[in-house]
């Protein structure tokens, strides 16, 4: 590119929900009133000290925050370069970062006087976190989940049901996260008067990308503070995996205004760079419209959404949050991808060297961080968002290992 892009700022989005040119609202007219109400309710809640205090108390006493920042010494030694630190979102209640957002949105649901919650889920972590928050607040909850993901993530499906949620299998299209979002949006079209849709990532129409990012930013705020306390300085590099991109947005956002901190987002590189074999819109896609916002997507020449693949159900998505598109185009965050098999190696390394089973999503970030650590001096520090724990993936990993042999 000849023209240098404007530098990224943390003062995003603008009033129209735009991150640079990305974001906005591309939804049926039926949903605009609910989106306006949500926007207004959130803007009030954001400056309401009582709301913030209630959320903070829940995050502390219910979720177990702050999550630790852990120096993975043996993993760092193995790589022979920079020191790797892990932001332990896997230690949160329900086992992933998703709970940060669902508790915030459940509080908003109660504040708006809505009586029912719907959600979509890919790997099931957002479904479990939503079902948990709904049980905590006594809200009935329906979770849409693709049939293929139900197969891959049976333990989470069982948990959701135990928590009182209804899991509705989605049998259309690729039967994965993208189709679950379509069905959740269709449900919302008919139930918008009394239902809140707890969207699970930094995707969708404005104000969702902003709201989810803000609720997830607790990750980056803590990591920033903990780095100063434990390392005596900010990290050189921050790494997170990117599907829709909520853990990454939450991790990156508080570092956007720290020019010396480099950031790397890791997409699902799947089996290869061929169309249909990966889920990396920021690496291989182009700007387009999907699920209510303008962002990088995997589309064919006609604007139809392409099928994507990832070993991880949580990353198996053809779009990405609009703020990531903005960070990509401004050069603030570097996006790359990691193949299925590399992610499995990352999983094995963390399990055997540190006694931690990471989620397959997070294994992508671990694998890339190991690669980057090896290229840097031991005086450098890398903070990786360990977005979730891997119990849910045990059966899928066993199957893949067998396939590999």
């Amino acid at each position, binding site marked *: 590119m000849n023209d240098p892009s404007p530098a990224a700022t943390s003062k995003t989005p603008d009033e*129209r929900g735009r991150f640079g040119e990305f974001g*906005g*609202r*591309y*939804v*049926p*007219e*039926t*949903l*605009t*009133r*609910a989106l306006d109400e949500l926007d207004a309710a959130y803007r009030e809640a954001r400056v309401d000290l009582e709301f913030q205090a209630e959320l903070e108390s829940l995050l502390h006493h219910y979720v177990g925050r702050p999550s630790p920042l852990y120096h993975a010494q043996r993993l760092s030694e193995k790589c022979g370069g920079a020191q790797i630190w892990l932001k332990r979102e896997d230690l949160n209640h329900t086992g992933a970062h998703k709970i940060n957002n669902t508790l915030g949105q459940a509080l908003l649901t109660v504040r708006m006087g809505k009586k029912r919650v719907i959600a979509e889920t890919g790997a099931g972590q957002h479904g479990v976190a939503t079902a948990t928050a709904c049980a905590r607040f006594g809200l009935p909850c329906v979770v849409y989940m693709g049939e293929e993901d139900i197969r891959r993530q049976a333990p989470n499906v069982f948990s959701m049901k135990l928590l009182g949620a209804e899991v509705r299998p989605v049998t*259309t*299209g690729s039967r994965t996260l*993208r189709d679950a979002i*379509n069905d959740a*949006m*269709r449900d919302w*079209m*008919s139930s*918008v*008067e009394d239902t809140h849709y707890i969207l699970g990532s930094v995707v969708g129409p404005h104000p969702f990308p902003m709201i989810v990012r803000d609720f997830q930013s607790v990750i980056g705020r803590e990591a920033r503070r903990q780095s100063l306390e434990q390392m005596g300085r900010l990290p050189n590099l921050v790494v997170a995996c990117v599907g829709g991109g909520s853990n990454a947005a939450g991790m990156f956002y508080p570092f956007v205004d720290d020019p010396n901190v480099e950031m790397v987002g890791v997409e699902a590189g799947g089996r290869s760079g061929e169309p249909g074999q990966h889920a990396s819109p920021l690496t291989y896609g182009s700007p*387009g*419209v*999907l*699920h*209510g916002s303008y962002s990088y997507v995997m*589309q064919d*020449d*006609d*604007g*139809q*959404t392409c099928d994507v693949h990832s070993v991880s159900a949580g990353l198996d998505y053809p779009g990405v949050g609009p703020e990531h598109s903005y960070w990509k185009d401004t050069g603030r965050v570097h996006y790359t991808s990691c193949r299925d098999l590399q992610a499995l190696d990352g999983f094995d390394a963390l399990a055997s060297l540190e006694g931690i089973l990471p989620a397959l999503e997070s294994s992508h970030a671990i694998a890339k961080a190991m690669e980057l650590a090896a290229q840097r001096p031991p005086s450098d520090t890398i903070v990786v968002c360990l977005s979730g724990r891997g119990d849910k993936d045990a059966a899928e990993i066993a199957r893949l290992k067998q396939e590999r042999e």
Partner: protein
Amino acid sequence: MSQIDDLFTGLRSAGKKAFMPFVTAGDPDLEFTAALIQELARRGCHLFEVGAPYSDPIADGPVIQASYTRALAKGIRVPAILEMLGGLKDVSAPRVTMLSYAIIHRRGLEQFVIDAKAAGVSGAIVPDLLVEESEAFAEICQRHDFSLIQLVTPTTPRERAVRIAQLSTGFLYYVSVTGITGERTELPPSIVDNVGWLREQTDLPICIGFGVSQPEHVKMLAPVADGVIVGSAIVRQIAAAEERPRADVIQEIGDYAATLLAALND
């Protein structure tokens, strides 16, 4: 004046209402779609809404979504749809396309309008393009005398509805229900009041769609609407074309449309 403006001017002076069937392009194939449009035009349908299949529809119910999936599986894409529509020289009724903004954006906003006009298409209904996001596309449509038909729904605040009416061209699409496309046994009685109110705010023709499928619905809406749109009830019948003689299915849909046409303008 676009072809759509001419149509409604003529209908209004004759005291008649427009009947507008929705058909999915390419289900089960484009030859069938062309034959169906020709039959429906012969039966007196005034305007056609031709749906371009999209992989991730949000506003559509299971019937139209399934129809899109069947068409996409057969490789139906916009250039072939426009070629089919361009070939319908014997159909004088205007047609509009209904499609996702994802498709228009990918093709290029101006290129889409140029290609659609060349195929004899008079306008577009873009359900996921809100009035706030439509400025660039609306400007291009206006420059090419191509109608951009915007939607008003029961959840649209009144002030906003007036703004949408001001920025719509061709006609205004009133969505009868809070929800997705699909047949309903009953339509909410508030439609008549809501559209009656809207009627006083704009001179633009108002057509009502979503959920409309029975002669009783059409009779209920005729006093306040300039036209009615029927989609899922037709698309559901199209699904039968895979297993039954096509001529029979086309004939039956023609008969069905004729009963609605009779209820509308009697």
